[in-house]
């Protein structure tokens, strides 16, 4: 298996910088998820690792070998394309068998058949093997695309939103399946998504991209709990983190450079005896949890409650914040660590 090292890599399309001076190390057997909105450079990063794009600057190394000038076919990477990229004029079987017919594979027809059958059963497309690749639903095409990557044993898996067009149930199943495959094979996977749930559940480490730059990388909890900036904080968590100006809530202490408060919906406490008074705008019961939309001084806030709160719309309630759960951001959107800012009262932070 393999380690991937991207060293100060850059790629532009015309005047747009898709990836700018990006450093990334993916350890052997690690599942790294690249998260970011459309245009953040996620797909370009994957294509640079695969060699489908040539970098303008920087280098790519796989398994300690500099492969910057190596053509894709010699890198032994598997790529799951977002738009499936199946061979439309072939059947599902032929699509899955194609990677096994590459020069140097030297497999017999029977071996190929067995291998394709295994993968097809794993992805539950074995009943569609004789179908034309174009006569499939979006979800089936995506599974064939994943199958084509799994069918041979590459050193690295690169996946570009592989679950985006599947229905919720299948997506959940495949998420578990992918994680299992990765553990079983000890595979190194770089996975691109804009779905924060996928990122949180699949990743060993999450890398958050913004305009071609890697703004933070770390294990999911770390990125969630101590985001480097407002931008990162907004990428994870549903509903999104609430952002308030300093002074809208009474807090025991605020670092002097902080201008914005970030409060996760689950950290908002309702029905306090004292505190800022907010108005309940909307209550959504989602079964296990309840999402409450509040209005505080003209600004909307989301609160997430574990129990089915019996709140009425239009009611006025006092709200508070779980102690030590507030994130502080400065005028540039960077997180300010209250400990480093020297505010002793906030010592409970981060426990």
């Amino acid at each position: 298996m393999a380690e991937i090292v991207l060293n100060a890599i850059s790629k532009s399309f015309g005047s747009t910088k898709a990836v700018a001076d990006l450093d990334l190390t993916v350890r052997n057997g690690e599942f790294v998820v690249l998260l970011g909105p459309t245009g953040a450079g996620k797909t370009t990063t994957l294509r640079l690792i695969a060699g489908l794009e040539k970098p303008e600057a920087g280098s790519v190394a796989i398994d300690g070998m500099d492969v910057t000038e190596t053509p894709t076919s010699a890198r032994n990477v598997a790529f799951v394309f977002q738009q499936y990229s199946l061979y439309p004029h072939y059947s599902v079987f032929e699509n899955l068998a194609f990677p096994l017919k590459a020069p140097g594979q030297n497999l017999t027809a029977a071996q190929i058949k067995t291998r394709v059958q295994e993968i097809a059963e794993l992805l539950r497309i074995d009943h569609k093997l004789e179908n034309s690749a174009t006569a499939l639903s979006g979800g089936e095409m995506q599974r064939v695309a994943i199958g084509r990557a799994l069918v041979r044993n590459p050193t690295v898996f690169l996946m570009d939103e592989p679950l985006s067009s599947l229905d919720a149930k299948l997506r959940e199943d495949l998420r578990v399946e992918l994680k299992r495959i990765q553990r079983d094979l000890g595979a190194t996977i770089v996975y691109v998504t804009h779905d924060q749930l996928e990122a949180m559940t699949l990743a060993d480490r999450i890398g958050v991209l913004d305009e071609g730059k890697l703004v933070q990388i770390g294990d999911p909890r770390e990125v969630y709990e101590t985001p480097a900036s407002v931008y990162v904080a907004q990428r994870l968590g549903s509903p999104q983190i609430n952002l308030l100006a300093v002074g809208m809530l009474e807090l025991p202490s605020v670092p002097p450079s902080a201008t914005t408060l970030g409060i996760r919906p689950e950290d908002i406490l309702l029905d306090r005896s004292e505190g800022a008074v907010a108005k309940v705008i909307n209550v959504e019961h989602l079964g296990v949890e309840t999402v409450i939309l509040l209005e505080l001084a003209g600004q909307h806030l989301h609160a997430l409650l574990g129990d089915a709160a019996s709140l009425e719309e239009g009611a006025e309630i006092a709200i508070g914040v779980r102690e030590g759960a507030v994130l502080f951001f400065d005028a540039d959107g960077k997180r300010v660590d209250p400990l480093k800012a020297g505010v002793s009262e906030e010592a409970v932070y981060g426990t």
Partner: protein
Amino acid sequence: MTDQPSGRSADSLTDRVARATPGAVVQRVRGLSDTAIAWLFISPTILLLLAINIFPLIWTVYLSFTNYRANRPGRAIDWVGTRNYERLLGNEDIWGYLQATAHFVVWTMVIQVFIGLSLALLINRNFKGASFWTTVILIPMMLSPAVVGTFWTYLYQPQTGIFSYIINLFVAVGPVDMIGSVDLAPWSIIIVDTWMWTPYIMLLCLAGLRSIPEYLYEAAEIDRANTWQKFWYITLPRIMPFLMLAVLFRGIENFKMFDMVVELTSGGPGSTTEVASINLKREAFEKWRTGYSSAFAVILFVTVFGLGNIYVKALNKVKQ
């Protein structure tokens, strides 16, 4: 119109047409069903087709069973049954003409597909000046076959022509008489047809190549296919419908090849290049055996029609 409110000016043309239509016409058109109106619109075309395509076809089939001669209009037309067909199919010369035609069609198609596809693959590499060379390659196709035939007879001149001269640069065989030699005459037409129509095959192949999405090659690259596999498993299957269509069009045209043969060899020497259409013209308008030549025309028509249909079935299968 400008002083109208803008909301009404959008449909004012329809309004004005409606107002300008005489009441009687409005009544009559309103009384028609959709089907009737559809027929009304396509009937001029249908009448034209019937008059210049269908009727002559049926009339030819009828004449093929008679001893009619178009240069003797006063003579009674006798029904001779299948005698014309019997004579045709029993005539060994006819098989010779059909063989000459088949030889011409098969070789032009094989050579043109090979060169046309190669050129298309080259042009598709988008090198500098590719569009200039495309235009240059297309020039022969834009010329009139009569002109092409005439100037190639000059090029083919054994003593003064440049063709013979160039051959002699490579192999010193002396004057090469392309048109006058029994062995070379069929190839003289094949070469000119290839020179003229390869660009057409290239153009359709190029259209096919341009329609192949880049991602298929990226996927193949990921699947570690080599250049040959990419051509064999992606390029060729994807351009096959285009290639087959080009061959269909050119094959039918070449089956009927007439003008260039007349200009170059007129069927000679002897009857080595007497393709079917040349012989047909001779029988019909030199010997005036109208009934007999009608039968020949019907046989040719059925052959092309039959082969064309089989071919189109294959084409549809390739396209799926």
